[in-house]
């Protein structure tokens, strides 16, 4: 990606605007990327293909309770992995001989990564005879893990696109998780819990806004302090209220899955996306709202202009401070919603530090996703998929047992490599973290 000037970013309606000219790659770059693909292909053929046990790898794509059953897919593990690896090698050869154009190159890389992943699954599935990898379950778990990350990253998008760094996502989530459990229990109403979660996330957002915008405090340090603050306050209130009297303060109900008519009956997609709880549906809506809002509305244009060049925005009459306050608090509301998902959306009762660092992963997803809602969604899904996959890998016996310590770092490694390969350089909003002082 060539660095775009700030005016361009404001002018374009899409955050990933293609560069102006499609220059052909240099020979060195072409050979380099071909070698990268060739390496993937060779890994797929030699390690995964020939390393797989003879026999079938089986994949399941429908849940046992679905009305429309998809038969279990069985493929010869070795042959399939070798064929997928060969496909990658062909792409590599084409790149070496002719060179893909820019867009084609990215597609070729994406196809190669997916092919290698499928080869990997064939290899993994061949380890123990009779293993059936539940692909639908794997994808369901991916969504399950991704939702708080996506919401957290959206909170970051709202905040940082207007030029305020939000390290406090974790604290906003944690206070949201606490309030959701507590107020849903007190009111015997899950809706009240969601509203309370959003308000408490919004309150931390408001603290962040006041100190960052009014008092010009260093925003990274401020975020860290707010995280400690949320951890301490929720921990204290947990000890003081919830622990002595779980029934009164900490026994919320749980959002039950709601299967949507028609959409819920679709094979694969139905149970995956449309048979889940209302907080997940709300997440779908929020992704769309933030994306459209940011890139296709006046509010979005103003937000981005304030995040890129506040002085210019001020000159044309935009109230920089007001835009930032509004966005930071809105971000807090969304992060609070992520907190509600962590307790009453998935497990119910609150326990100390239940967010366990999800806010920081969300922050990373935001950056890997180039501060765009869809990019953050992709990064969060990728991380969640790698995390869900490592669990499955540890359960089914792979042909070579993978040490649990390596599996633990797998989601992080996978995310870093995929981001390095697919995303490349990322650029923060130009005024991110810089307080605006009217001169």
């Amino acid at each position, binding site marked *: 990606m060539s660095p775009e000037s700030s005016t361009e970013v404001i002018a374009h309606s899409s955050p990933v605007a293609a560069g102006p000219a499609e220059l052909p790659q240099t020979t060195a770059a072409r050979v380099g990327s071909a070698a990268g693909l060739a390496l993937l292909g060779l890994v797929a053929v030699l390690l995964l293909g020939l390393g797989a046990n003879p026999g079938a790898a089986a994949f399941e794509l429908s849940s046992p309770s679905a009305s429309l059953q998809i038969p279990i897919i069985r493929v010869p593990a070795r042959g399939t992995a070798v064929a997928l690896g060969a496909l990658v090698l062909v792409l590599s050869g084409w790149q070496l001989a002719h060179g893909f154009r820019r867009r084609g190159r990215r597609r070729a890389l994406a196809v190669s990564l997916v092919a290698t992943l499928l080869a990997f699954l064939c290899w993994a599935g061949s380890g123990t005879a009779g293993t059936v990898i539940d692909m639908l379950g794997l994808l369901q778990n991916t969504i399950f893990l991704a939702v708080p990350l996506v919401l957290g990253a959206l909170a970051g998008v709202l905040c940082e696109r207007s030029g305020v760094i939000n390290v406090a996502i974790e604290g906003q989530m944690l206070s949201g998780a606490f309030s959701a459990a507590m107020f849903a229990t007190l009111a015997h109403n899950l809706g009240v819990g969601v509203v309370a979660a959003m308000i408490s996330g919004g309150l931390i957002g408001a603290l962040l806004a006041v100190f960052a915008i009014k*008092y010009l405090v260093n925003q990274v340090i401020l975020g860290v302090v707010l995280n400690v603050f949320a951890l*301490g306050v929720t921990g204290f209130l947990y000890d003081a209220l919830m622990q002595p009297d779980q029934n009164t303060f900490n026994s919320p109900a749980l959002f039950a899955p709601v299967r949507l008519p028609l959409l819920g009956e679709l094979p694969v997609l139905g149970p995956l996306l449309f048979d889940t709880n209302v907080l997940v549906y709300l997440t779908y809506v929020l992704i769309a709202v933030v994306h459209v809002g940011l890139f296709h509305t006046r509010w979005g244009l103003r937000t981005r202009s304030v995040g890129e060049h506040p002085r210019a925005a001020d000159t044309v009459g935009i109230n920089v401070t007001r835009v930032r306050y509004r966005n930071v608090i809105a971000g807090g509301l969304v992060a609070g919603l992520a907190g509600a998902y962590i307790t009453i959306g998935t497990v119910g009762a609150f326990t100390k530090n239940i967010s366990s660092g999800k806010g920081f992963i969300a922050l990373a997803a935001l950056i890997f996703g180039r501060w765009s809602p869809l990019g953050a969604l992709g990064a969060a899904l990728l991380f969640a998929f790698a995390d869900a996959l490592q*669990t499955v890998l540890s359960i089914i016996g792979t042909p070579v047992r993978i040490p649990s310590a390596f599996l633990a770092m797998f989601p992080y490694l996978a995310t870093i490599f995929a981001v390095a390969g697919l995303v490349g350089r990322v650029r923060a909003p130009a005024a991110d973290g810089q307080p605006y002082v009217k001169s």
Partner: protein
Amino acid sequence: MKNSVRVMALLGVVALAAAGCGSKPSSSGTSSSAAAPASSAASSAPASSAAAALNACMVLDVGGVDDRSFNESAWKGMTDAKAANSAISISYVSSSSQNDYTPNLNAEVAKGCNTTIAVGGLMTDALKAVATANPTKQFAIIDSATGQPNVYGIQFNTAQGAFLGGYLAAAITKTGKVATFGGLNIPPVTIYMDGFWEGVQYYNKVKGKSVQVLGWNEKDQKAGTFANSFTDQGKGRQVSQAFIQQGADVIFPVAGGTGLGAGAAAAASGGKVSVLWVDTDGCISAPQYCPYFVSSVVKNIAKAVTTYVTGAASGSYPTGSYIGTLANDGTGLAPFHDWASKVPASVQSELDQIKQQIISGAIPITSPSQPK
């Protein structure tokens, strides 16, 4: 600008105070001499120097005193000791990360504690150093032993209790697959998983069945399924869901608070899946999931701590180390509660027989993580 510094400082103070409050002892059972927080080190010295009184302190591992797991059991041992002998004053500090171990241990020593109990094997290295630096002070550590004369090791051969749990799980599974996962791949966790695995293998041997264990194999200590957290319930639920998707219907989480996610997954399965709880009696520590808890593999930390503290208060510190086994009720299965009628009587009597055979040594436990 001056104003902003002041406001920022205020927020910082509130944050730190709140963080401190989060780990402050609950006032119940804390006598006045021990109520001073760890930060005001010297102030409690006069009261604790009284000859008859024993000032027993505890450094908890991360997760908090109410983790419904081993911190909670250890603290219960302290409160029980105080109930038995009112001359004992008790207090604890929590650790919010592994970086807190050494400062917490040092603070307890400086505070004038007669004995400091470190809860958790992860504190071994920190305690070893602190005990070397303070040879006149007495210490105890749970889940470890350092071999030092002033450190009493309190360990548990929980593989014995988990063996019974594994046998029970194998006996009640309908799908022929049972599962276990840990919080971290460390011996105090994997010893449970070893015992569970052995129990299932024993069931297969005597019954001629082939019940599979997902998530752990004693023969392959480096692999296995781990949540890499003791607090992330969501991760615990996701791991449990993955087990259920791969066909398991009895899950044994060895991951503290993370394991509560297994309860949520079992509840979502509508009763098809049951959970074997760990460390404490699940129906007491997490009653909301009691209908799904077939039983619990307990580690009787409370009793061991009480014995140690009351022993120390009576004048002589126990020396050497303690190993909790089935024979001394240091480990075992909790009552079946809701499952009493669902677990066949034949299985219950087989469990009693196996217990006796493990005590007598007729059934050997092979876990490499057993305390020696």
